[in-house]
């Protein structure tokens, strides 16, 4: 079985401050997982802000070098250096960012961004070829070049714009998309159209997606496997349904308990059990390791616990 992406013992450490008062932040500690090339899947990374999920994504995209460990894409090390190699890599791994209104230049037409991506990755200046590539990518997300052409970002809704951003990422036909909170800035009513789109990319086009989110409900809805991160450490990993139906790590349980439910709408139940919070936060930073369980998941257990 060949692998698409391998994350091997990856850690990232940031140092802040200068000579005096130097501070070290471990953004990601010892992350390990891999995606298979044969079976496209939606792999979800869940965590709160500061859990290192975005840092991990930036390392996969090659925007940040890992301090330790290595990231392999199709057996090749992800490298920030060397222009030709970098372009080749970028054609295979494409990002979708959080806020579509910031991803597009408000003063330029939407097609400009799509066009420059097409020109760069298809290595052509032929207008007809570029137009065809743009139209194909837009068709995949349920739009068409005819609808988009000549329009500025402010003329579209957040959901449509996020679709355009995804279409742009699809132009080089990448096998892997990195979507960093693609729905958190989109209205709740349009959220499902983006989530359904990611699902159909996997099922119909065979694109693997690394979906980064703090929304457990959409993660449950679309993902195959997931990891839950707390302060840079993976605390639980496994099949999405198995983990979320019955989370084992105290932090995963806290996350699940914090999801706002509509089952008892109007009852005003909001209190979180403080014992749960302290249980989840007490373990942070203690030495521990991931242990495999019989149902296929791995959970971090702590020494002496």
């Amino acid at each position, binding site marked *: 079985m060949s692998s698409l992406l391998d994350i091997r013992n990856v850690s990232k450490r940031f140092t802040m401050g200068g000579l005096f008062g130097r501070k070290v932040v471990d953004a990601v500690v010892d992350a390990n997982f891999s995606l298979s090339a044969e079976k496209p899947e939606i792999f979800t990374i869940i965590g*709160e802000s500061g859990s290192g999920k975005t840092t991990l994504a930036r390392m996969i995209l090659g925007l940040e070098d890992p301090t330790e460990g290595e990231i392999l894409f199709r057996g090749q090390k992800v490298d920030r250096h060397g222009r030709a190699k970098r372009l080749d890599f970028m054609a295979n791994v494409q990002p979708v960012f959080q806020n579509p209104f910031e991803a597009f230049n408000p003063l330029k037409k939407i097609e400009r961004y799509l066009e420059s991506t097409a020109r760069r990755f298809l290595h052509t200046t032929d207008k007809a070829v570029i137009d065809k590539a743009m139209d194909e990518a837009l068709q995949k997300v349920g739009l068409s070049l005819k609808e988009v052409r000549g329009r500025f970002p402010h003329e579209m809704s957040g959901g449509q714009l996020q679709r355009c951003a995804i279409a742009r990422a699809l132009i080089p036909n990448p096998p892997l998309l990195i979507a960093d909170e693609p729905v958190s800035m989109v209205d*709740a009513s349009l959220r499902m159209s983006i989530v359904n789109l990611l699902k159909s990319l996997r099922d119909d086009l065979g694109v693997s997606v690394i979906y980064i989110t703090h929304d457990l409900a959409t993660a449950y*809805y679309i993902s195959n496997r997931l990891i839950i991160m707390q302060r840079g450490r993976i605390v639980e990993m496994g099949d999405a*349904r198995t983990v979320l139906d019955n989370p084992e790590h105290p932090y995963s349980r806290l996350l699940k308990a914090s999801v*706002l439910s509509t089952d008892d*709408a*109007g009852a005003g139940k909001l209190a979180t059990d403080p014992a749960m919070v302290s249980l989840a936060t007490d373990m942070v930073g203690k030495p521990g390791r991931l242990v495999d369980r019989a149902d296929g998941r791995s959970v971090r257990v702590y020494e002496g616990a």
Partner: protein
Amino acid sequence: MTDNILTVEGLKAYYQMNYFGVEREVRAVDDITMNVRKGEVYGIAGESSSGKTSFIKVLAAAIRPPLRIMSGSVKYDFKTGPIDVARASPAEIEAVRWRHLSYIMQGSMSVLNPVRRIGKTFHDFASRPLGLSGKAFEERVLGHLARLKLPPEVLRAYPHELSGGMRQRVTIGLATVCHPEFVIADEPTTALDVVVQKEVLNLIRDIQKEMNSSVVFVTHDMSVHANVADRVGIIYAGRLVEEGPTRQMFFTPRHPYTAHLVASLPRIGDTRQRPALEGRPPNLADPPQGCRFHPRCPLAVDKCRKEVPPLETVAPDHRSACWRWQDVEPLVNAAAPAGEMA
């Protein structure tokens, strides 16, 4: 409980612009009539560009041109006496602002002055409306911070030194330090994580109960409304389309738009395909004829394309603006719990 603190009647507020001789009118708030009772949390839901922000700007008496009130009234019944903020003079509004009518703003990072310590911001903000200074003022603020479970050291900190959740609690603190009777909360939890979000919502709810104030809570996330609001009003394209007690809105919605909003929420433990609403909210400078939801509505008939449905009482305390409200079925999400209720 039955007397209203806020009564809005036939409120119309339009953006009027005149660029290069071309007049444009955007009907952001179009004929809204509603009320908020004393001691209740009223949730307002709607998509971006539905006019909900314009509506709460009017409620907060923060109207700036080009937004203008065309007609209608916004009457508050404060302890100090009634006031119609649609007509009140700036001095009259100044007298009620923060002490009676307060506002928790969206985006805690941009609300707080980045180069001023939190304590100074509290002083700038609240010492005049409270009429306190020096030791007495500090004691009052510290007492309030303790209630928000914030340590006193927060007063010495700069905004960037606090986490997102703490900053949001500070802005809630600023808005509630004067014990206002009426608080408007504009998407106070949108940028927060699930765990922190729940904490902040819980805090808003606690503070509201403790001070027995009324809160208008604005967010597009229906799952937040399910847990915070007593009543929910749905705004679509500048109009109030449905309003009712939270439980009824979720389990027996009487407007197709509400039914859709509720059904599109994903849930843990349920992987059935969720429908997504196609199309986009209408352009308010040129809204469609008749019911403004008809281009996206699965139930639309000819009548919907021609005549505007009035907001009618469909059940006690429950109003809907739909010609076919009897035919609205709760969609997939609400099906099971609705059965339980009966």
